């Protein structure tokens, strides 16, 4: 729907960096979606020590890892895991964060004030640590990693969305709806919330980058998906003993992570410029 408009905008502005970034995110999402059609799960996880640590070649374009598995196949499957973890965690963080932000922005009383104070207190805590605590409770794995990232991002989202809602509910159209007898729920969801849609899309894109970054860090620590699941951070952790002799085992997943996170951040920034051209001047 709006995608074509956004890409056209990037072309008109000759923003080739953001265009490349959009292309990279598209490639990443396709790899994640079509991974089962491209390679079977068996070849991403089967250990064959005879082919361990081969440098990149025609049969293994990115080489093989310390257990003889093809790096390209593992990276493509890793994209699928990364995307699922990132998307689901962002959905959790955004939906709960927006609900708390809405309620605390729309109703101003002691309860919502106390909730926001608590959220502010939580924001002061490093997210990596919050996520580690959640993983400690739930145990390591794909699901708990997803929940850990999602839950630890809720406070920041609640605060981010409360501001605009606080401002929007004092605007004429919201007051008019109230004067016409609309219920609180209908004012919030059909009048106020649609006005934050651009913020939701921009924040969602930037949070995806953030979720991938934090998730890979936790996986690197061994708190994410367990072997033989091909997660990029975990792949780096498993192969790091061989970094000196076979740098490709680190660089393939590491560059994949860096490029994908960078792409999401650049697309998010470009989206912000597209939606609100004034923000570019503020930079």
């Amino acid at each position, binding site marked *: 729907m709006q995608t074509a408009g956004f890409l056209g905008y990037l072309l008109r502005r000759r923003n080739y960096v953001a265009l490349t970034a959009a292309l990279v995110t598209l490639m990443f999402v396709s790899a994640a979606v079509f991974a089962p059609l491209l390679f079977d799960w068996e070849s991403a996880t089967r250990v064959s020590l005879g082919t361990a640590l081969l440098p990149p070649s025609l049969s293994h374009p990115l080489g093989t890892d310390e257990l003889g598995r093809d790096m390209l196949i593992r990276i493509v499957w890793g994209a699928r895991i990364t995307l699922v973890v990132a998307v689901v965690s962002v959905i959790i963080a955004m939906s709960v964060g927006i609900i708390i932000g809405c309620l605390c922005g729309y109703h101003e009383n002691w309860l919502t004030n106390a909730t926001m104070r608590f959220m502010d207190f939580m*924001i*002061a*805590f*490093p*997210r*990596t*640590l919050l996520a*580690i*605590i959640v*993983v*400690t*409770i739930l*145990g390591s794995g794909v699901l708990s990693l997803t929940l850990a990232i999602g839950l630890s991002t809720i406070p920041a989202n609640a605060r981010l969305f409360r501001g605009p809602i606080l401002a929007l509910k004092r605007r004429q159209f919201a007051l008019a709806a109230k004067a016409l007898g609309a219920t609180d729920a209908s004012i919030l969801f059909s009048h106020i919330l649609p006005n934050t849609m651009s913020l939701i899309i921009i924040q969602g894109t930037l949070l995806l*980058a953030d979720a991938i*970054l934090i998730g*890979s*860090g936790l996986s*690197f*620590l*061994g*708190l994410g998906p367990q072997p033989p699941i091909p997660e990029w*951070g975990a792949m*780096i*952790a498993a192969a*790091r003993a061989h*970094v*000196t002799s076979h*740098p490709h085992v*680190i660089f393939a997943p*590491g560059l994949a*992570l*860096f490029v994908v*996170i*960078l792409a999401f*951040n*650049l697309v998010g*920034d470009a989206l912000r410029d597209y939606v609100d051209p004034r923000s570019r001047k*503020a*930079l």
Partner: protein
Amino acid sequence: MGTYVLRRLLTLPLMLLGVSIAVFLVLHLIPGDSARMAAGPDATEADVQQIRVNYGLDRPLAVQYGIYLTKLLQGDLGDSFQTLAPVTEDIARTFPATLELTVAGMLIALILGVPLGVYSALHPRGSADRLVTSIAVLGISMPGFFLGLILMLVFASVLGWLPPTGRGSCAHLVLPSLTLGLPYVATFARLTRSNMLDVLSEDFVRTARAKGLSWSQVIYRHAMRNASIPIVTILGLDFGRLLGGAVIVETVFAWPGMGRYMVDAIMVRDIYVVQGTILVFALSVVLINLTVDVIYGIIDPRIIYS
């Protein structure tokens, strides 16, 4: 000012109490039996039960918390299941290492970031300015462990200039603190730049110039002081983030800090260690935020706390 600091300090025990209850509850909700974990795979049912009794794990939750709190007030965080050493001893050994790493990382970000930001504010649209805006996004996109491994590969393995892992000399500190601090350089630079630009357009800067002060005096005595207020705010928040990042950097460089100690304890469900380390992390974050509030007052005497 004095009463404000005092009042904030008085809320500190209350916050700690809240944090201790939260951490205590959270860790008792963990599925999995830590007593069985501590007893090892070959333990009999009687052994496991004995450990439960020894550590008081068979008592009601409220009683367990009461015992935990009493001990906490006496500076006793319990003993590790793994090493059998008191957790406080391990924290006393590992926390300074984490603090050293975090402070060094912060200093790198500040020492490189703030001057870069001032310079690009004074030369808008120059090459430094363009550099700052373009490397900021690189900084927030780089996973710390990947950056660390690259630095280790280049400066330790290939060039052999610096030791790859461990703690000890200043040379050991260089790579871990660079890994931690570099991603924040551009963030600080960008923040300094935008604050500096705001301040430089204010009337008092023009007045200071008009009364004959040199540019450097105006910048360092008038503009910098005003521009640094928002930087101090971010400094407080980023200190927490660096503390969290230190957990990952410690793993990369085998730095014997509290983050690594905590993660190792999580793997084997050594609850007293996890409890103790999280408590100390929380305490540091609370203290840092308090310090930041006090620093505000010093930089900007207009702030009156009510």
